[in-house]
């Protein structure tokens, strides 16, 4: 077994210079043929991807695909590409990708080593960490206060997993999607809802009485968001990354960021210098 694996690796190394020349991308072929890029994204995760008051499906992640990734794919396949959106949630996104129902997950998916075993991730396009959303005045101030408390999470999310491991006696309530979990918090069915900080701010801003709620606690995990695709399609990954890279380089990414998170955006959330440095480091800057 082991020897076979080594032989394979050597072979792969030997062949790798030839790789790009013969690179075949099933995903790009499919997109070229159909003229459509199908993404899986969220319906209730403002401001990344949600359905707004006019019943339009919008958000930061969707804009990134539309303005950065699509042009790069168009260039690669040599024809204009249309965007189709499908709903994906934490429990459904990997199966949807593997079943070819969608080509790219662009929502709020955290890039983790574990998930990398089943999918590939693009460059990181956002960096956040898990916190708690609670009612103002709640005794919960962070992960150390949640023992025995009712905590809402999304099924299949990284946060659910961490809480399960770190605070096994917290009463986890796992919901199939974010709006249901958030609603459980609003109605007092749970004491706190844990998710990535930025999403909690987004929900708070959209709550009926935003001032009643607060986001508390230090990041108890690091959550770099990436776009996920089927494993092993290097050419497609290259194309997606090229789009994002181009966005970072030209500053277009920061314009889109400003549209959603700038002072006049949906959710003012200035980018810290550390995060900016982290994002730019990916492209060697």
């Amino acid at each position, binding site marked *: 077994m082991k020897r076979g694996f080594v032989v394979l690796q050597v072979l792969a190394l030997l062949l790798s210079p030839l790789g790009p020349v013969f690179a075949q991308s099933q995903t790009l072929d499919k997109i070229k043929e159909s003229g459509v890029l*199908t993404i899986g994204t969220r*319906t*209730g995760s403002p401001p990344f991807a949600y*359905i*707004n*008051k006019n*019943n*339009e*499906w919008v958000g930061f992640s969707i804009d990134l695909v539309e303005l950065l990734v699509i042009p790069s794919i168009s260039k690669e396949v040599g024809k204009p590409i249309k965007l189709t959106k*499908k*709903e*994906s949630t934490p429990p*459904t996104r990997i*199966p*949807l990708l*593997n*079943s*070819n*129902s*969608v080509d790219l997950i662009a929502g709020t998916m955290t890039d983790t080593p574990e998930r990398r075993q089943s999918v590939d991730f693009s460059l990181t396009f956002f960096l956040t960490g898990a916190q708690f959303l609670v009612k103002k005045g709640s005794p919960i101030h962070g992960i150390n206060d949640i023992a025995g408390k009712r905590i809402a999470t999304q099924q299949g999310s990284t946060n659910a997993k961490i809480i399960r491991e770190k605070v096994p006696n917290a009463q986890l309530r796992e919901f*199939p999607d974010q*709006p249901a979990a*958030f*609603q459980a918090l*609003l109605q007092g069915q749970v004491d706190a809802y844990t998710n990535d900080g930025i999403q909690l701010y987004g929900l708070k801003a*959209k*709550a*009926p009485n935003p001032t009643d709620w607060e986001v508390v606690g230090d990041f108890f995990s690091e959550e770099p968001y990436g776009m996920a695709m089927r494993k092993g399609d290097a050419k497609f990954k290259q194309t997606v990354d090229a789009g994002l890279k181009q966005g970072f380089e030209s500053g277009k990414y920061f314009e889109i960021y400003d549209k959603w998170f700038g002072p006049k955006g949906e959710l003012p959330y200035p980018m810290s210098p550390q995060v900016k440095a982290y994002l730019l480091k990916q492209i060697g800057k």
Partner: protein
Amino acid sequence: MLDPGVIVRNFKFLIVQGFLGIGSFAGGTLRLAIPAIVLGFALGIVVGLARLANAAWIRVPAVMYVELFRGVPLVMVIFWMWFVIPQLLRLPIPEYGVALTAFVIFEAAYFGEIVRAGVQSVPRGQVEAARALGLSGAKAMRYVVLPQALRNMVPSLVTQMIVLFKDTSLASIIGYVDLTKAAQIVNNREIRPFELYLFIAVVYWICTYSMSRMARRLERRPSTA
């Protein structure tokens, strides 16, 4: 405390997009329910007749089909259609296709049982008399047995159609924007669950109740044969 205004404000989205399926999202309760009922019944006739066949190679698969699909929850069948079939066929299927196929395949098992019971309710003497008059087996089925069977089936058939109509709400779990999903989307931003879910309950009820009223009228109608 209650705010009926939420219904008024979102009436168009709920009814036009959610119920009828006209709009920018793939959706619509009626757009899914009507073809699902028609195709489910059509496949149900095939399954039901196959279960009554004399040849074992037709009968046994039909029995297995019915037992299989009556033994698992519809939610499971939907997940199979959504995740597994596209992976095996390496073919993406849109939500509408996933939902429609899942409903047709699942409900055909139930329709099949109704068809079988209906055919069995026709006295044997009818077939024998038809054969004695010189009709072939197929003709006896078509002209003598099926018309009578159909009349006997009407009540359970309509019950099953109502069940299917209600079951289409499960398409919302795969992101198909039917009436239920539309209410969820609105609820996600307005947080008015009591009003919204009660409203769609009434919409569903109006449809299903009128279906059952119609059935009762059909039952009362004197036989025309």
